[in-house]
């Protein structure tokens, strides 16, 4: 990975897109100081990390940025759901009873039923386990939540529910969201800023509308368009006009309607 300059604003929803192996995963490990930059700096809030930062100074940063890795259910290990969620805060010195209260709050926040809290995490369904893992990261009370393909392997309903949870966290908990995804429709529906990665470099950043305005450029990086934008491009060939380019089906429908005859 080389020469990346980017800013993520508090409270924003940033999507990171790029092909598999484009450096997305390396990027998020820097956001959480799991990796130290070999050159350059990463600044999180008022703290700066560079190649010389001592490892013991990194830990407070990990509390600020919570990462939900791909297939996060693979990190569960405790006897009960509640204990697993409380594991993170305890590592940061939160007393046990406080951590448990926090864990319960987070479990309810991600939509886990209270009856599940005393169960073993391994007894839950895949979707529920994923919620436990997300709650475990939220329990660190981070300011930034990074999610690496949180919907991978879920069915359409599961995907929708997780994405709704993420937007709810952004709006109600004032979390800054960084989402790594292959789903362009999710980018169009939820993000306000997009970072495009390729070959370990950031090749472009901007609003979703700016990024998705150039289909050919995206194609050159093997990336696609949101369904609505792709469909709008077909309609342009049929004589319709759009300004700006629609990103979601609602935007598309809104612009389409005035162009249709009302019988």
């Amino acid at each position, binding site marked *: 990975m080389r020469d990346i300059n980017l800013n993520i604003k508090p409270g924003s929803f940033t999507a990171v897109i790029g092909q598999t192996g484009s450096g997305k995963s390396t990027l998020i490990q820097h956001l959480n100081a799991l990796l130290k930059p070999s050159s350059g700096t990463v600044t999180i809030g008022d703290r700066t990390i560079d190649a010389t930062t001592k490892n013991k100074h990194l830990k407070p940063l990990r509390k600020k940025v919570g990462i939900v890795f791909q297939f996060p259910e693979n990190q569960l*290990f405790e*006897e009960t759901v509640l204990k697993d969620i409380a594991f993170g805060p305890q590592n940061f010195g939160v007393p046990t009873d406080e951590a448990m209260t926090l864990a319960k709050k987070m479990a309810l926040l991600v939509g886990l039923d209270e009856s599940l809290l005393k169960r*073993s995490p*391994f*007894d839950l369904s895949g979707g529920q386990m994923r919620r436990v893992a997300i709650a475990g990261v939220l329990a660190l009370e981070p300011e930034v939540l990074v999610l690496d393909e949180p919907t991978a392997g879920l069915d359409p309903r599961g995907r929708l529910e997780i994405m709704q949870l993420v937007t709810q966290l952004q709006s109600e908990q004032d979390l800054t969201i960084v989402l790594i995804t292959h789903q362009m429709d999710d980018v169009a529906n939820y993000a306000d800023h997009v970072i495009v990665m390729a070959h370990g470099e950031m090749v472009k950043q901007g609003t979703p509308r700016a990024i998705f305005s150039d289909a050919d450029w995206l194609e050159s990086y093997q990336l696609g368009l949101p369904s609505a934008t792709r469909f709008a491009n077909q309609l342009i060939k049929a004589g319709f006009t759009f300004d700006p380019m629609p990103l979601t089906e609602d935007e598309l429908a809104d612009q389409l309607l005035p162009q249709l005859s009302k019988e």
Partner: protein
Amino acid sequence: MMENKRHTSTREIVYLAMLIAVTVVISRFFLIPVPMTHGNINLCDAGIFIAAILLGRKQGAIVGAFSGLLLDLISGYTQYMFFSFIVHGLEGFVAGWIGGNKKNTTKVVAMAVGVVVMVAGYWLTDTLLYGFKVGLIGVPTNFIQGIVGGIVAYFVSVPLESRLPRLLGE
């Protein structure tokens, strides 16, 4: 039930293979440097004890023997390969024999005996290869390694034990 016996058999081959692989992985992954000696201790005994305690003597012996062999093969200590096969195999067998599916205190005893078998086995090996006194050098390190492995195995296998039927897909 239809072809139930064969079914268990393929699954058993595969989970033993996975346990061997995990044991090799944790031995290569977690090297704890030991002060005052020539090197590191690894966690292979933990993997072997976990297999032995969860599944029993035969399985413990297989996981022990093959992970010992593979570990030496991958790390370039081929001269130890067959000795490790026997020593770790015996270690797993003994630990599984005494401690498989038993009370927690019995498990501790089983692992302690396993450690003794392992330490004695390597001492004998080194004595054969390099002489009696040189063999003594390895004893303290192997001892620490075995004890650490046993402690780790205890804390991992106790919670896993109740999950076992489900993990084996039953």
